[in-house]
């Protein structure tokens, strides 16, 4: 069972109070995956967000007959967060890069959190926004580097 103190080590959650983390972790399910096991399938419908506790996962897409790596995520990082806010199919496949332990928050659990503890839900939403904003910033830097080759 994941202890709340493990979450405290992650940058995104490091400023949360112990009380909030203890409460927060209750809404999640825990699951372990083996190397190469698929966690999420591209185009599948799903409404869960995942937090990596240990290990690494590979975000990949199938193109030109092979699985192409888009990104590697490691402990302390979220994925699948878009599905909480839209109803579109998964945009990529997520596969275990090496054996990993994940916490899973379903849309239902997120709704419960919103009903029972709005402050916590807001803190969580803020964290998701921060993650998305960091990813957008990273995308901008990627484009700047890419433009060195293409323009």
């Amino acid at each position, binding site marked *: 069972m994941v202890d709340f103190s493990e979450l405290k080590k992650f940058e995104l959650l490091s400023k949360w109070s112990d009380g909030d983390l203890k409460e927060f972790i209750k809404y999640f399910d825990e699951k372990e995956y083996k190397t190469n096991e698929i966690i999420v399938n591209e185009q599948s419908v799903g409404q869960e967000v995942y937090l990596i506790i240990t290990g690494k996962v590979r975000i990949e897409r199938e193109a030109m007959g092979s699985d*192409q790596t888009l990104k590697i995520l490691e402990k302390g990082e979220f994925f699948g967060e878009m599905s909480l806010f839209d109803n579109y199919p998964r945009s990529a496949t997520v596969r275990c890069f090496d054996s990993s332990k994940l916490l899973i928050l379903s849309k239902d659990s997120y709704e419960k959190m919103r009903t029972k503890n709005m402050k916590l839900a807001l803190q969580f939403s803020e964290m998701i926004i921060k993650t998305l904003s960091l990813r957008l910033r990273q995308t901008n830097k990627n484009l*700047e580097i890419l433009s*060195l080759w293409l323009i």
Partner: protein
Amino acid sequence: MIFGGKKKDALNKDEFLNLISNGKYKEALAIIESEESSEYFNDPDIFFSYIGIHYIVNKEFSSMKCSIKDLNEINDKWKFTGFIEKAFGLNLYRYFEQKEEAIFNDLIDSMELCGLSKEALELIKKEIGQPRNEKEYNNVAFLLWELKKYKEALNYFKKSLVLKTNPITYNSLGLIYNELGNNFLSEKYFKQGLEEFDDNITLLTNYAVLLFNLGKLEAANNIILKIQNYQVGTNFLHAGIGKILPPEYEIDLEEELKRCPKSLSVVLEIGKYMLKRGDVERTIDFLNEEMKKGNESAKIYSLLSYAYYYSFKFSEAETIALKAKEKFDNNIILLLTLVFLYVRREKYDKVLSILNIIKEKDVMYIEALFNVGLALENAGVLTKARLLFEWYLDVSDNRVGKEVISLHLEVINVKLRLGQGG
């Protein structure tokens, strides 16, 4: 020993390549020909630059041989990098030494770029006699055009059109007639080309420029709107579109500058607009003048550096960016400008030192090497992906990222050995 003469100091590659960049071919040749060692001829930059400038100076192919492999890979890597002499040398070597006939058209193109149009025409006559297809007719026509033999150039382009229509041929006919002041025929060929190739951006852009110059503003504007719906991705096209933007835009900015002579943002906007129009020399003069008045910022220096780069003044571009980097305390815009210059000039060792400074400023740019490398790998652009991954391994402190990239690098190396990807 391959060359005669006494051995002097060890060959300085940068000095040798700089001499070539500055058109000092004879001095560069003298350096090489005073060397006793042949080891430099395992370096593609030196070997093919030598082959290229040897031909430019002596008008004959040097029969030197090298043991360099993967000429296709080198060719892909050098495309559009601005090193015309070494690309020319590579084409010469592939055609004359390796007997690769398919490279002939590329060789003719590179001769034209090196200012050897007359020699290229003679080579065509010697090697193939009369052109055999529309591509070869066009090649001859471009060379004649370069030599300002307009009438003959027009004849060859027209013969090319009879064999096979091509937007480039229509575009060239339109441009030559425009150059000769015959707007009627110029318009005729652009229109004719667009009837057949209605979404060709080059034809659209040049036709719009012509219409604008003829005062047919509404028609020009309709074409601009059409062009704007396309993804425009080259400076050439930006310059083309810039030239047909309403001139009032520029006047407004200049008025604004009179009103606020110390406004750095207005100076920057005017400079960017001039560069976008393709008025490179004017941009350089304007920015230098403004900087003398104290209108300086990291962005203005960066823009000036790009303007020098686009006018092929590479050492000025580098000098101005380096000077500004010191002045503005390693400003990220200037660091990225330097990375751009070094990447384009293939000075990869210098890229690494700048990336190390960038890492201290914003580590996201280093992670971008990882992400862009993956994107390039996925697209099959393996040599460039490999370069980015190697930089990442050198610069990044991300242990996990480096583990992952090491695996990708192994796969890329295997693929490249098997001749997959480019």
